[in-house]
């Protein structure tokens, strides 16, 4: 059975439900578990924590389930132990995936039962058909038909449930969906066959009914397992983003805890170089913060007590004390929340390719079936014959291309993208992205890396760089880390200096044998001629100061990707919340002619709405909190794995790594997936055009119909598998 070989990405069964029932169970998402060796290392690392009684890693889901004795170990111990072993882990705090996984298993069980029944009934009915008119005993044929009935009836009742339930729901809502003709064909064929078996006639088609059910269930299962896998990956990404926060207890003691466990009213301590884990108000401390993830603005902003601060903000200066507030009281977040809601409602109106086809197809199927039945009755045929022909028409027209072909194509496309580090989050995202005809980029964190990088590195003398790096190694400030990285790149043997003192928000100082060394702001190094901007000075007493300038640099292949998109004929635009001159520089560097700066989230949406009114379908690529509404409003959206939580949750695709090339991969895979899905519709359509007239004329028995239908299903699946080719990149 093909279903066995499918990668089922569900995490271990014990996960969510058990976690709620037993407080000593924990599930962690592991970012970099990729091979069998990692699997064992993760389990060993988790087991090394005292109090942990068992650990079982799941490689497909990239998670580990840990059981520990209450009180002897906690979440944080395990996370720290895994970190020491080289794995970044984060607790999963969503148990809602259980319901989806249960649904996946519900379908898989029915696939198995229908498969078993289909094979055995086929065995019996092929012998009956082969023996009919020959030397087969009539009573033996009758016995075989009864045996078939015995297998088919419970199977139809059990395995047909997903279709019956959905059809019933559609009929209650006075609609027609594809499950209505499917249910009708299966139920009519079974009832008719039972009637004929009782009367001892030959026209028995249990085989057709059950085979149809088997193939349709495989399609449903593929669709569902793609959905579960996509959601699981998305949840892992979101959990890994949230990280760990330090809180200050009422008695003044500090405690580290997972960010998701923070509650309004908690007092949060954010050290220099740390990201703020929750939205809040600054209680104490002031200095500079980098809000590029929130607003797209790369120039540091000042922060002072009483000011609102958002999750994702990077603290550049002094340690900040923050009181966590509920998200809904925040002005920017409230605005973004409102915009998101409106944008998502717009997107919910999107109808998938298969649904749109079904809308036209379902009434046609019913019409043809009814016409055949009535037509033969009017021509004077007995009602059993008329009904048999009508069933053949229903089976022939049964939408296997719709039920199987599209999910098969999508699962092949999604696994191809997955191997290249791209997570497909929305099941219909591939269809939407293939329709887009304009690409809109955000600047900070999307075209650029969103991290300060040292500028004009070559101009800085080796000596100064090495000395500055020696000081900088003592600090977690992003600029300091940028200097250390630059020194490392030049392969200078860098010695981390002793006795470095950090004055938060100002700089580093060290009293050495050759006089005092300082690294920090212009003021700190007593440099008068400061031009402002993102810069750090290094000064050794008695020597000229050296300036280190920082800027957010482009992703290495940004210009290349923009060029490739242009060659493919996509109009491009750059929408940013950053200052106009910064946007202009980046636009010129990558070669985008249309650019707009200093945009508020609502203005980004207005721009996209303008596009939509002009009939354009926008692919939005962005990462910031301020991009989230635009990501939701765009026809399709992509965000990097470094993006803000809310953006990753909104985007249809999330790509990992430093390069922008995955955007090209998404576009080309989506286009190929659509082409193959349309080919599949073509195959199914041609075969209907040929077969339906024969079926209506009564030349096709339901058995032949079932066989022909199965062949077309296999053809369509094999066609879809072409997409999955290509190795890991």
């Amino acid at each position, binding site marked *: *059975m093909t279903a*066995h070989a*499918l*990668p*089922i990405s*569900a*995490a*271990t*069964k*014990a996960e969510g439900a058990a976690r709620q029932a037993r407080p000593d169970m924990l599930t962690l998402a592991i970012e970099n578990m990729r*091979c*069998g*060796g990692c*699997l*064992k290392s993760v*389990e*060993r690392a988790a*087991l090394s924590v005292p109090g942990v*009684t*068992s*650990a*079982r*890693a*799941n*490689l*497909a*889901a990239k998670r580990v*389930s840990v*059981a520990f004795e209450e009180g002897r170990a906690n979440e944080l111990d395990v996370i720290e132990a895994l970190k020491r072993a080289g794995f970044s882990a984060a607790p999963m705090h969503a148990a809602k995936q259980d319901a989806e996984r249960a649904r996946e*298993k519900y379908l*898989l*069980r029915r696939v*198995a*039962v229908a498969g*078993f029944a289909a*094979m*055995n009934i086929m*065995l*019996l009915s092929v012998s009956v058909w082969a023996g009919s008119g020959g030397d087969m*005993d009539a009573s*033996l044929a009758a016995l075989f038909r009864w*045996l078939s009935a015995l*297998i088919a009836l419970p199977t139809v009742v059990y395995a047909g449930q997903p279709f019956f339930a959905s059809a019933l729901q559609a009929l209650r809502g006075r609609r027609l969906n594809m499950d209505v003709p499917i249910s009708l064909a299966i139920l009519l064929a079974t009832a008719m066959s039972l009637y004929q078996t009782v009367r001892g006639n030959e026209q028995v088609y249990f085989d057709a009914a059950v085979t149809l059910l088997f193939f349709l269930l495989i399609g449903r299962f593929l669709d569902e397992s793609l959905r579960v896998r996509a959601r699981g990956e998305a949840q892992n990404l979101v959990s890994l983003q949230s990280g760990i926060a330090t809180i200050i207890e009422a008695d003044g003691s500090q405690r580290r805890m997972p960010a998701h466990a923070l509650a309004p009213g908690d007092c949060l301590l954010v050290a220099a170089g740390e990201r703020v884990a929750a939205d809040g108000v600054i209680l104490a401390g002031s200095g500079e913060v980098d809000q590029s993830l929130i607003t797209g603005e790369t120039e540091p902003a000042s922060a002072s007590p009483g000011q609102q601060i958002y999750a994702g903000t990077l603290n550049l200066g002094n340690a900040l004390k923050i009181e966590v507030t509920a998200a809904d009281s925040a002005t920017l977040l409230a605005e973004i929340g409102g915009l998101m809601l409106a944008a998502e409602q717009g997107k919910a109106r999107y109808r998938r390719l298969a649904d749109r086809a079904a809308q036209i197809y379902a009434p046609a199927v019913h019409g043809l079936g009814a016409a055949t039945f009535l037509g033969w009755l009017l021509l004077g045929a007995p009602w059993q014959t008329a009904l048999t022909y009508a069933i053949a028409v229903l089976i022939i027209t049964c939408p296997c291309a719709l039920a199987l072909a599209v999910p098969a194509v999508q699962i092949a496309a999604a696994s191809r993208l997955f191997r290249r580090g791209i997570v497909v989050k929305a099941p219909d995202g591939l269809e939407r992205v293939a329709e887009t005809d304009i690409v809109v980029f955000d600047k900070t964190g999307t075209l650029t890396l969103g991290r300060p990088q040292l500028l004009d590195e070559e101009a800085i003398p080796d000596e100064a760089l090495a000395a500055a790096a020696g000081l900088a190694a003592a600090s977690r400030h992003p600029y300091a880390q940028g200097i250390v990285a630059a020194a490392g790149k030049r392969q200078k043997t860098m010695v981390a200096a002793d006795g470095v003192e950090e004055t938060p928000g100002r700089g580093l100082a060290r009293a050495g044998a050759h006089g005092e060394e300082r690294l920090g702001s212009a003021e700190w190094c007593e440099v008068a001629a400061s031009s402002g901007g993102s810069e750090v000075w290094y000064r050794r007493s008695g020597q000229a100061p050296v300036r280190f300038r920082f800027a957010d640099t482009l992703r290495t292949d940004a210009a290349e990707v923009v060029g490739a998109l242009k060659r493919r004929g996509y109009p491009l635009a750059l929408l940013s919340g950053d200052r106009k001159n910064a946007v202009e520089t980046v636009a010129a560097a990558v070669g985008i002619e249309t650019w707009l700066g200093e945009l508020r989230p609502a203005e980004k949406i207005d721009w996209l709405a303008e596009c939509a009114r002009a009939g354009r379908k926008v692919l939005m690529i962005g990462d910031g909190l301020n991009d989230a509404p635009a990501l939701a409003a765009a026809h399709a959206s992509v965000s990097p794995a470094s993006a803000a939580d809310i953006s990753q949750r909104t985007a249809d695709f999330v790509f990992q790594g430093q390069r922008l090339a995955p955007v090209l991969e998404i576009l080309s895979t989506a286009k190929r997936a659509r082409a193959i899905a349309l080919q599949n519709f073509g195959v199914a359509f041609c075969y209907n055009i040929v077969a339906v007239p024969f079926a209506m004329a009564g030349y096709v028995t339901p058995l032949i119909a079932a066989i022909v239908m199965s062949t077309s299903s296999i053809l369509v699946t094999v066609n879809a598998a072409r997409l999955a080719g290509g190795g890991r990149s």
Partner: protein
Amino acid sequence: MTALAWLVPAALLLGGIGLLAFLWALRSGQFEDLEGAAYRALEDEPADDPARRDEPQ
């Protein structure tokens, strides 16, 4: 022809055993991590490895 009297039940029984074995495997969580299972088969560690004690049931 009389051979059919036991051949047909035998065929159904064998098929049924296969089906039940699959359903049992599904229930006992053996299809939860197909990628990891491929590597676990190559492990040399003794069966009482503590990591394995927690077989999901």
